[in-house]
């Protein structure tokens, strides 16, 4: 699985892109976030406030119940703030 991080999630994890082998028992977005928190350090900090994290699987916004699998591109980021006032 390919993991991408943007904005302050990227800054806290210190990583833009990485290859992640899905651990056993991780089959949904919620389980993946929980696993990220368990990695400690910047990851624990980035994923500590899970309500502020948005997730896209294969470039589509998804909810926390969405499945994840090897081969997916999973992106983690804050709520978007494009556009203009």
């Amino acid at each position, binding site marked *: 699985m390919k993991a*991408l991080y*943007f*904005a*302050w999630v990227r800054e806290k994890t210190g990583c833009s892109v990485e290859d992640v082998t899905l651990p056993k028992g991780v089959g949904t977005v919620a389980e993946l976030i929980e696993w990220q928190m368990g990695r400690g350090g910047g990851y624990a900090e980035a994923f500590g406030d899970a309500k502020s994290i948005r997730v*896209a699987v294969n*470039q*589509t*916004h998804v909810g926390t119940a969405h499945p994840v699998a090897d081969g997916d591109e999973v*992106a983690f*980021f*804050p*709520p*978007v*703030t*494009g*556009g*203009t*006032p």
Partner: protein
Amino acid sequence: MIRVQLEDFDVGTELAKLSDGNLGVGGVCSFVGLVRDMTKDGKIGAMTLEHYPGMTEKALADIDAEAHSRWPLQASLIIHRYGRLEPGDRIVLVAAASAHREAAFEACHFLIDYLKTRAPFWKLEQTGTGGKWVDARDDDDAAARRWHSVNKAAE
């Protein structure tokens, strides 16, 4: 048509393209978003827009397609910049062309409201004390939600 780019754009040229060669267009509604020098947290010097290449184009194309499915549009346009921008710089241009003005106005408004909650862009403001990631606004969510109950505009 959607575009994600570093460079500025020429509003007049872009809007003219929407009706060029299409004599059925009665009106073009557009919205240009600009960087302000002041936010609720104070004065800013510049900002950097980060985005998610690939997903951004996909999200904008989806929003554009949704607008065409809801209103009778002859053409539409979303151009969004990324990278470093200064106060006064253009950030975004959305536009909708239709035979009648109601459809053009509603579709254009829809494009910018949806873009603000769906397109993966993040703003880092440079303030006097360093960089600050801009928080999403609740009223942007509310603005996007209001379109959930709008089916199709009267022409």
